[in-house]
């Protein structure tokens, strides 16, 4: 028996196969979008992400490096033990320049033992050799142009309309591309779930009108959190905004972070 392959029948078959594939793909994409909005975000019913614009500000002059925010974050979000942090604190010690050196300041010493969760040990230099010393809280920078979202091969990580960058753990394939693409080291691969994880701004809290755990616990009020779309006159965010000139981390990368720092030093990356 000899099968006849006419051009018409072959093209029809090919067209049918492609149409079938495209339909499956379109259906799955639609499902993914719905899933993103309803399932992955732990938002309650009635929360409308388009009506909010979350913003995190850090008044770096106020941080005392107590590490409560790190601990609160770990507990609130069930972050695993070990080198896994959604937020952490860095300590910068900038020594005075060595006598005779033509440098303006010494080489910065930076550390973050256990993410700063239990505070910091004694500085490794005697006090009289230290020019400046300060703490810098770090977290996901909530980029307007997040490189992590750009590179995710399945779209498991996405930017919600309210500015939060979230991950759908049921969808993440654990390739680690987003972790490599994050310039701020804010992501990690959860050793238990084998999926990428990061700060969500405590999405389950902020969508219910609460503040993120780190903001709630900060005794120095170094972290200021609010909703740009619903600012009232004596909102701490409004006051912070009026009072300070702000900076972001690694601005040259064009990521447009939405975590704004006041009082940042040039050594902070």
């Amino acid at each position, binding site marked *: 028996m000899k099968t006849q392959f006419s051009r018409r029948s072959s093209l029809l078959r090919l067209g049918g196969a492609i149409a079938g594939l495209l339909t499956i793909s379109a259906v799955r994409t639609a499902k993914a979008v719905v899933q993103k909005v309803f399932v992955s975000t732990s938002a309650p019913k009635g929360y409308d992400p388009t009506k909010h614009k979350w913003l995190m500000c850090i008044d770096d002059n106020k941080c005392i490096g107590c590490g409560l925010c790190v601990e609160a974050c770990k507990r609130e979000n069930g972050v695993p033990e070990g080198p896994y942090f959604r937020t952490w604190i860095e300590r910068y010690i900038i020594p005075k320049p060595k006598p005779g050196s033509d440098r303006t300041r010494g080489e910065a010493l930076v550390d973050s033992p256990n993410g700063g969760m239990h505070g910091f040990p004694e500085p490794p230099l005697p006090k009289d050799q230290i020019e400046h010393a300060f703490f810098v809280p770090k977290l996901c920078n909530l980029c307007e142009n997040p490189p992590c979202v750009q590179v995710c091969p*399945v779209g498991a990580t996405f930017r919600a309309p309210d500015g939060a960058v979230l991950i759908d753990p049921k969808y993440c394939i654990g390739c680690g591309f987003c972790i490599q693409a994050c310039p701020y080291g804010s992501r990690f691969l959860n050793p238990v779930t084998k999926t990428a994880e990061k700060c969500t701004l405590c999405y389950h809290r902020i969508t219910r009108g609460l503040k993120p755990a780190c903001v709630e616990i900060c005794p120095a009020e170094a972290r200021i959190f609010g909703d740009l779309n619903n600012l009232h006159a004596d909102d701490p965010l409004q006051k912070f905004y009026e009072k300070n000139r702000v900076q972001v981390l690694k601005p040259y990368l064009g990521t447009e972070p939405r975590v704004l720092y006041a009082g940042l030093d040039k050594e902070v990356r």
Partner: protein
Amino acid sequence: MITEVTNIVVEVLPQFEGYVFPNEAIAQPLWSTLIVVYPYITGLVAGAFIMASLVRVFNVKALEPVYRLSMLTALAFLLCATLPLLCHLGHPERCYEIMMTPHMTSPMAIFGFVYAWYLMAVLLLELWFDFRQDFVKWSKVTSGFRGIIYRALTLGVTDVSEQSVRLDMKMEWILSIVGIPSAFLLHGYVGFIFGSIKANPWWGNVLMPIMFILSAIVSGIALCVFNYIVLTWIRRKTVDMRCLDTMAMFLFYALVVDAVIEGLDVFHRGYAAEEGFAVLQTMIREKLFYTLNIGQVGIGTLLPLLMLGSLQLLRRRVPEAIRRTMIFCSGAMILLGVLAMRWNVVMGGQFFSKSLRGVMSYKMEFAGQEGWLISAVILCLPFIILTVLVKLFLSEQLQPSEHEPQNKSTT
């Protein structure tokens, strides 16, 4: 409590020097040997295919004896190209999502399509058109399981009239032409996966896809040289020196271009000396000293350049046996050198912190998901597949049909 915790952290730290972000202080780099093997295998595919295209598209007749071997090499390696990625995923069972719900801005998602296109539309089709009339012929003379395989592979198209064979060859020629940009795309995209990461100064580089393509061509030709010599040695046949010399010539020129572009990259980094240059210097001088300076530059580039270059100049005066040995050694060294290059790119990008204040050391594990054993197995697998393919399709008992050079009809 505080001192205790600090001490614990200090105990973990010896593999890190300077400051690394807390999330980076994991025992193993996120991407390790498996991700080193992945671009290596993909590069070998693209290179072997481009080498085969020299015969079909550019009509380099001297390379005809290695055409089918190169195509089968490309296929054997392509079949294994996604394995390292798959083994590396945290959730391999969700891998189909890359194809079903691809995120179009991700280089990794697009790679899935480029891979599928290359495997299905280019390589398998081209091989099928090339082998079809042989399948028909062989299915008639062989019996048993082998006969069934050949018969199945004809896909029911048993017409071997002159007209249909001419159509086969025309299709093959078209596919070869489509295949060259596809091969560039396949491996260029792998380069882009790294080159697009602006967060990492070691990776984020416009030259990265170009360096990947060039080193792929070099490694692919080297692999064909290696396979050809090993195959003739196993079969106790004589090497076609005209073919081998031509391969050596292409290998040499490809290596020159590759070395120049990689040199340009290093020169530019040094001259521009942007933020993070100090930490990159530490990498070259300490962390990657052996794999970069000795592996990639010395064994992988300079020595083969010297050997192949001198052969270009003194070909007639060097006896065949020595020439063969020199070309074989160059091929083997280039294969090692390109593997070292992949290592330097992939691991180099993770040996320093994105804070640009610290570097980390890495001790390879033997077993486990990221151990080198599984990578070694994945690297050996294509050779096993290739052996089967060669036994089936380059069998000594089954003579191929006489092929007309494909572009005779079109030029």
